[in-house]
């Protein structure tokens, strides 16, 4: 058991440039002779392409290249299913499918040329009902699905991209024997990551090597994507990410880098692409998935959960991308961090002619958790038990067995519940039209390989060279704290060389809340190697045994005789290279007994689970249905916290994003699958003035299997239970749960005034 060192709050080094506007983002970059790119998107969400005539576009003065599928290798790509081409060939499958790309002298010219491309279609019926798409006689989004290269654990079949089930014991029998059974059905609409920075890409070829500056969360995946689709070796591709203006998952995955690289190669000029806000909504193959969630729970009178049945249907949209694991992840969230005797949950991920869904902060979790937590409150009501008490009796603890047979080690689920209740003053008198709701959730840590170098500079400072990606969470900015701890230096003594695939080792990128968890371990290991070298050098220099040396405050000194010492700067200044490298051992996922499960993608158990309870106090305007969130208490077990300021910041942002998902954020589609509100006027993010008081408590348990010095992750969990907590508070005020997410004023008003139940 490692003990948490005393840690002082650390202010990240990239903050000032970002706040003052001095920071450089991809769109700020301009290269001599550069051209501007625009895409021609599908004119129909579902149509067969009959012909593409680019002659008029090519003839426009100032246009340098017009590319279609004919101009790039005929390669399919994707995440768990290779179901997509850079340019649509036979069919367009959603409104953001790219048919052609143009490079021209100005962005306006490029847009004009894109409009001149004559595309002839045979319009097909849009397959927008993702639940109905699974029916046997449904038309197919991908006629050639059986020929696709796909992860065989997915269970790809027709319009069902993935099927996952979790089976523990005999849920049917247990349900039949339960004292109380509650059934619910919830529907969550799609939503977006909505980063401040619309994406931008600049590509430039020198010889047969291409450098691509891109606002991506996953530079190494972008590199692989370019290499794969343009049929060139990865070593000829270098990705650099200038400062990233947020992503929230939407900039995970390989997106548009190859289109721009192909244009740059065709024109032999640097080419730049900058998205408009509208494109940022319409074109990325990334949004939070819509979901239908049916839950049934049987309990004994004393609140024991004896059975859970569930059926989930998720809208995958037109293509797979990196979201192949969603069915399984959603199934785990339909179980939640509870001790349940018997489980039978089926989860389906279906294709449709809508924007593809992809990882958005804790994919599948906020919606599934919102449904489950309201369902738990319904169960509590049926048991005539306080909802907090029901959770107290059923949350997982050490020795309990998870839905797939995982046996939990020490975790802080119950402590987070008590902490949140305490912070919000659960049970106190409230003014009329106010109520408190409580929700619990969980999120896994992902153990993946990751690497870093640490080197000392001649002036005694250090540089961390890492493949990790800073998406704004501060995870990379916090790495110096870990290196400094290992080396008796100050965090401020470290610079970071990052977001350049030619510099740092391979990394999964900023996804899965795993940067601290994995890259943190790598940095600690690299710094430890440096420490070993320093001890060797100092032992030589001072002519003492290594064991007699103390390393602190930038100095190695002999125990008991502090005058006999040498500084790190002196050793580093000698010219002797002092470097370390690290990757750290990847922790293994806990053992499971998931014999009854299908669709096993490695997420049927949760490694070093992070536990959360949030309580929300809300106020309802009965006449309008408008909800105001007044206070949120957030209690988190994210292991031992590396940097309190940074971790708190993730909770503030996550809770606000959670409030948006609860109340106002939704991407709505028309009958053909076109987005109805692709802009910030009608896609309603919460603003700073809507932010409630947010109180935070960290339950710092030294979790087995955790990351560096007992740390887990914290990027995604904060928005997981927020909609559920708000939903439970609203249900108390309205008298029944709102079964649609987001719980918009109109939906709340309808529930109060007995309007039609959707």
């Amino acid at each position: 058991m490692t003990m948490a060192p005393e840690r002082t709050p650390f202010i990240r080094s990239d903050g000032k440039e970002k706040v003052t506007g001095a920071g450089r983002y991809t769109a700020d970059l301009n290269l001599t002779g550069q051209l501007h790119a625009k895409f021609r998107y599908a004119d129909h969400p579902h149509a067969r392409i009959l012909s593409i005539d680019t002659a008029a576009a090519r003839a426009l003065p100032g246009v340098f290249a017009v590319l279609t599928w004919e101009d790039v290798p005929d390669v399919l790509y994707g995440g768990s299913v290779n179901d997509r081409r850079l340019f649509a060939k036979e069919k367009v499958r959603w409104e953001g499918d790219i048919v052609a790309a143009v490079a021209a002298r100005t962005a306006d010219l490029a847009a004009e040329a894109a409009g001149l491309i004559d595309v002839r279609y045979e319009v097909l019926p849009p397959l927008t009902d993702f639940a109905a798409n699974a029916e046997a006689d449904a038309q197919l989004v991908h006629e050639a699905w059986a020929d696709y290269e796909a992860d065989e654990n997915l269970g790809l079949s027709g319009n069902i991209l993935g099927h996952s089930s979790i089976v523990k014991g005999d849920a049917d029998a247990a349900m039949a024997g339960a004292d109380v059974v509650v059934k619910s059905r919830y529907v969550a609409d799609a939503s977006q990551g909505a980063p401040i920075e619309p994406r931008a890409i600049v590509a430039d070829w020198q010889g047969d090597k291409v450098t691509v500056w891109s606002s991506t969360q996953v530079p190494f995946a972008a590199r692989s994507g370019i290499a794969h689709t343009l049929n060139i070796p990865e070593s000829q591709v270098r990705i650099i990410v200038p400062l990233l203006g947020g992503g929230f998952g939407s900039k995970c995955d390989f997106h548009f880098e190859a289109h721009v690289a192909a244009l740059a190669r065709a024109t032999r000029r640097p080419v730049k692409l900058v998205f408009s806000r509208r494109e940022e909504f319409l074109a990325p193959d990334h949004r939070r998935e819509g979901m239908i969630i049916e839950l049934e729970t049987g309990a004994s009178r004393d609140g024991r959960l004896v059975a859970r049945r569930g059926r989930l249907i998720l809208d995958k949209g037109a293509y797979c991308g990196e979201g192949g694991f969603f069915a399984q992840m959603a199934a785990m969230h339909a179980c939640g961090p509870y001790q349940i005797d018997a489980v039978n949950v089926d989860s389906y991920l279906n294709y449709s002619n809508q924007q593809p869904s992809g990882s958005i902060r804790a994919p599948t979790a906020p919606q599934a958790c919102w449904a489950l937590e309201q369902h738990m409150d319904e169960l509590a009501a049926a048991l005539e038990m306080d909802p907090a008490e029901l959770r107290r009796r059923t949350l997982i603890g050490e020795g309990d067995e998870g839905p797939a047979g995982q046996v939990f080690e020490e975790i802080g689920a119950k402590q987070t519940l008590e902490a949140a209740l305490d912070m919000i003053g659960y049970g106190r008198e409230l003014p009329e039209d106010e109520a408190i709701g409580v929700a619990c959730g969980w999120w896994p840590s992902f153990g993946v390989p990751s690497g870093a170098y640490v080197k000392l500079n001649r002036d005694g400072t250090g540089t961390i060279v890492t493949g990790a990606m800073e998406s704004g969470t501060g995870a990379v900015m916090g790495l110096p704290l870990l290196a400094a701890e290992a080396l008796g230096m100050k965090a401020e003594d470290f610079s970071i060389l990052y977001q350049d695939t030619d510099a740092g080792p391979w990394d999964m990128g900023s996804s899965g809340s795993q940067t601290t968890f994995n890259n943190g371990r790598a940095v600690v290991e690299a710094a430890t190697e440096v420490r070993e070298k320093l001890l060797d050098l100092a032992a030589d220099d001072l002519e003492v045994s290594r064991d007699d040396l103390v390393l602190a405050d930038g100095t190695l000194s002999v125990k008991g005789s502090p005058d006999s010492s040498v500084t790190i700067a002196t050793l580093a200044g000698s010219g002797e290279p002092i470097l370390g490298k690290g990757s750290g051992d990847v922790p293994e996922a806990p053992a499971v007994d998931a014999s009854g499960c299908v669709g096993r993608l490695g997420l049927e158990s949760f490694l070093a689970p992070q536990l959360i309870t949030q309580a929300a106090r809300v106020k309802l305007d009965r006449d309008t249905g408008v909800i105001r969130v007044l206070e949120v208490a957030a209690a988190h077990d994210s292991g031992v916290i590396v940097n309190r300021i940074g971790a708190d910041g993730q909770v503030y942002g996550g809770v606000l994003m959670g409030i948006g998902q609860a109340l106002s954020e939704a991407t709505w589609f028309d009958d053909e699958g076109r987005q109805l509100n692709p802009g910030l006027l009608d896609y309603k993010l919460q603003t700073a003035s809507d932010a409630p008081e947010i109180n935070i408590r960290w339950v710092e348990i030294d979790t087995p299997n955790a990351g560096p010095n007992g740390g887990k992750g914290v990027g995604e969990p904060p928005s997981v239970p927020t909609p559920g907590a708000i939903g439970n508070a609203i249900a108390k005020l309205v008298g029944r749960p709102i079964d649609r997410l987001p719980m918009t004023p109109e939906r709340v008003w309808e529930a109060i005034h007995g309007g039609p139940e959707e």
Partner: protein
Amino acid sequence: MTGYIRANTVEEAVAALAAGARPIAGGTDLVVGARQGKQSLPDALVGIHRIPGLGAITETDAGIDLGTLVSHAAIVSHPAIRERYTALADASVLVGSHATRAQGTLGGNVMHASPAMDTGAPLLCLGGTATFATPSGDRTTDLVDLWTGPGETTAGPDELLVAVHLPASAQATGSAYVRLQYRRHMEIAVVGAAAAVILDGGAVTRAAIAITALAPVIRRVESAEQALTGTSGGAPAVEAAAQAAADAARPIDDVRASATYRRAMAAVVTRRAVQAAIARARGEEIPIPATESTQGSWR
């Protein structure tokens, strides 16, 4: 002409308009709209934002003159407006964010002629008139006669709005503007309503009620006004006025709300605006913005 020029005087601006240019003040509608692809920027623009004098707020015996360049921020912080033309302050304080209120002008709001514009209903209830500089001299019109449809006005392309005038308010006047909003800032009115009332000896002697985002133009609702006039302003009269406003609404169905919800909310915001206006006329403190201070259930 094409391109952009900056006018130093009203005459220069009017000349530019006559030559085909469109005026631009704060640009928060024109430029932001163009960026969003609603309609591209006009080929010729004349910047009017530096013309001296057009940003003044002047009180006279006859009332108050608001230059076209008066910003929403200036309206919100003006003591006389807060006190006697309170509905206008209720509206301007809701416009966009701090940045929008500092940059956006009253004249731009009026001339953009959006059916969801926030200052429209207050200006109508407060009896506003607009003065235009034209090639043939100044012209004044009631605001009621200005708006004809979304983005459409009776002003000619060569007419420059120079000021909005609000007549002096009688004693015991109260006014308020309330909009339905889903979040606290950066909103657009889903529905809105303004009311201005004059009380005499406890009775409502004059009532003006206008609705926002409930018809192609912002409009007064006579039936609602009649329901209130001559009454003591008690609950039944207020409710009748609110219902009349809802009945007069021609709400649409879109991504922001269904027509059913909009109509129901028309009654709610009208009721709140009328209640706040009456309370203010009685000298009670209803803090600006009324949208926030009337939140909650009505009993």
